[in-house]
């Protein structure tokens, strides 16, 4: 490149960089001052980072080692395989995810471990909660980790709630969950969404929804979030300052539609339908079975990742654009082609991943990425 005129810079360089996957943009930002500016400008104006979806597959029996991890970057439409180079993490129990975001936890009688950074490199290990639980709701709200329900049969109170304060480093008990949730006070029946201030719990089949503020320790509700009587199953997620509701309409043998609503208003009384899943994607969710009994979602920023736990080959991605209009797409699950589904369990999280997060992950020396072709 000897002629001055053939120098790439400015918005041409930024345009080029918008085609470079995030993991390869990191070195590009180090090339020179103008490239550094171009990288940040490109990420800001041309093609901004979008929330990644993380898939972790692990053995469902001890030693619960994590067998493979994948991440999807919607910005460059690439799946990445995450190689764990430093598996020093002791898997005392299975890794689970409860709230529809980035938190992963492991709970055993001797330890409660949790992680909420995007790549789950940092795990916090604390004493377990007082009540023995098998399938609790676990969510991070601000600087509190809330553990609710899921108590073992021999425990007295199935609705008990404990809060771990990250700053004070101690557990506190507080008011139990509302009594109406008595028969369904476990993560299997509840959809959980947590913002930085509030926890929202919706019973997936009935739609009964309550909110919890860990500062005041008060449960509020019930909230009426199902305005369409055809919904037989629904889940919630956080969308900005509001909530999104993803509902299955019809019945499980014959799902008519999958719709997305934005839930707004001071007491969440306004429901605005913002998207309907295209029929061909509903068919992908159904998979070989013609029914959908339940769905799970992971929701970060403008992205909702939806899947059917019984048919995990195809995932559906919904990007909520400006004016609340949804853009839909489907993703082939790279983990499914690798393994037999019987012995392995899949856990999904999603998180914002920026250049800084990627840099930290790369430097920790614990992970290496390769793009799945």
């Amino acid at each position, binding site marked *: 490149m000897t002629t001055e005129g053939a120098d790439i810079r400015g918005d041409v360089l930024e345009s080029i960089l918008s*085609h470079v996957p995030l993991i390869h943009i990191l070195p590009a930002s180090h090339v020179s001052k103008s490239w550094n500016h171009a990288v940040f400008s490109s990420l800001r104006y041309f093609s901004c980072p979008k929330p990644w979806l993380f898939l972790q597959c692990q053995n469902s029996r001890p030693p619960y080692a994590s067998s493979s991890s994948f991440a999807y970057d919607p910005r460059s439409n690439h799946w990445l395989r995450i190689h764990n180079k430093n598996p020093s993490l002791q898997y005392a129990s299975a890794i689970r995810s409860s709230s529809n975001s980035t938190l992963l936890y492991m709970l055993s009688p001797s330890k409660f471990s949790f992680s909420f950074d995007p790549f789950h490199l940092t795990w916090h290990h604390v004493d377990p909660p007082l009540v023995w639980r098998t399938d609790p709701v676990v969510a991070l709200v601000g600087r509190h980790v809330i553990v609710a329900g899921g108590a073992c049969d021999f425990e007295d109170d199935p609705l008990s709630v404990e809060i771990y304060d990250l700053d004070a480093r101690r557990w506190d008990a507080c008011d139990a969950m509302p009594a109406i949730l008595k028969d369904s006070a476990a993560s299997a029946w509840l959809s959980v969404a947590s913002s930085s201030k509030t926890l929202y719990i919706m019973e997936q089949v009935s739609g009964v929804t309550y909110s919890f503020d860990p500062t005041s320790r008060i449960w509020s509700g019930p909230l009426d979030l199902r305005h369409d009587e055809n919904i037989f199953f629904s889940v919630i997620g956080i969308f900005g300052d509001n909530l999104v509701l993803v509902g299955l309409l019809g019945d499980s043998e014959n799902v008519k539609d999958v719709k997305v609503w934005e839930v707004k208003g001071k007491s969440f009384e306004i429901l605005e339908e913002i998207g309907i899943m295209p029929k061909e994607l509903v068919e992908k969710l159904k998979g070989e079975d013609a029914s959908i009994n339940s769905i799970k979602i992971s929701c970060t920023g403008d992205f909702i990742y939806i899947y059917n736990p019984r048919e995990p080959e195809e995932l559906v991605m919904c990007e909520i654009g400006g004016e609340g209009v949804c853009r839909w797409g489907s993703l082939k699950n790279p983990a499914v082609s690798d393994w037999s589904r019987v012995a392995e369990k899949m856990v999904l999280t999603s998180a914002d991943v920026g250049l800084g997060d990627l840099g930290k992950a790369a430097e920790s020396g614990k992970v290496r990425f390769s793009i799945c072709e």
Partner: protein
Amino acid sequence: MGSTSTKIKLRTSDQKVFEVEKAVAVQSQTIKYIYENGCPDSVIHVHSVSGDILSKILDYCKKHVNSAAGKEDISPEELYEWDANFVKVDQNTLFDLILAANCLKIESLLDLTCQTVANMIKGKRPEEIRTTFNIKNDYTIEAEEAVRRENKWAFDMLGGVGTMVIEELADDTMSKCVTNTKSRVCVIAANQIVMMRSISKLANKKSIDVYKQPQNPTTPRIKESVKQRNVGTGFIELFFHFKCKM
């Protein structure tokens, strides 16, 4: 004139004139705009594009128009291959194509050429990118450090060594890492960078006692001592012994 073979004249920066079918020329949004808003009989000046480049671009536009209109029997795979061969040119020509596609606003060509250059960037370290594109590194050491500190990370992505992450910073932690003698060592604890030291400062010292005062009051305070030993050409092993106060 409503005939389908309306021709448009284009004059390049080096005074070459090309006469092309309207359908081909309006693949360029710029030319389309000028044609629709200016006088369609006169010649359109394409100042920033030379004859050679415009000739190539017109080949591209013609191929794509013909394939879309069904005039040429070409499958999507064959068109994809044709595109791949189209961009097998020297770097100068490639950049000229990008600049021209940008200024003529031919979106598919801009995407194709940008993706080609993007593929040349993927998977390379900064030094390799500089070599490929003949770019001068205008970072001074201090500026480079400042950029890295600002972005809270210290190494480039591929093959960074010399970083230590302390998971649980308890009193009396021993950690070690292997690093090459040219790099820096970065210690991260409680999700914050608490120490960054260049190896050259540690060289020739058997041990160093440093008390680091962090900026953030909730960060643990660390007193560390460092021992080092050579483990091979250009690599040293560092032992960090931490005493910390929470």
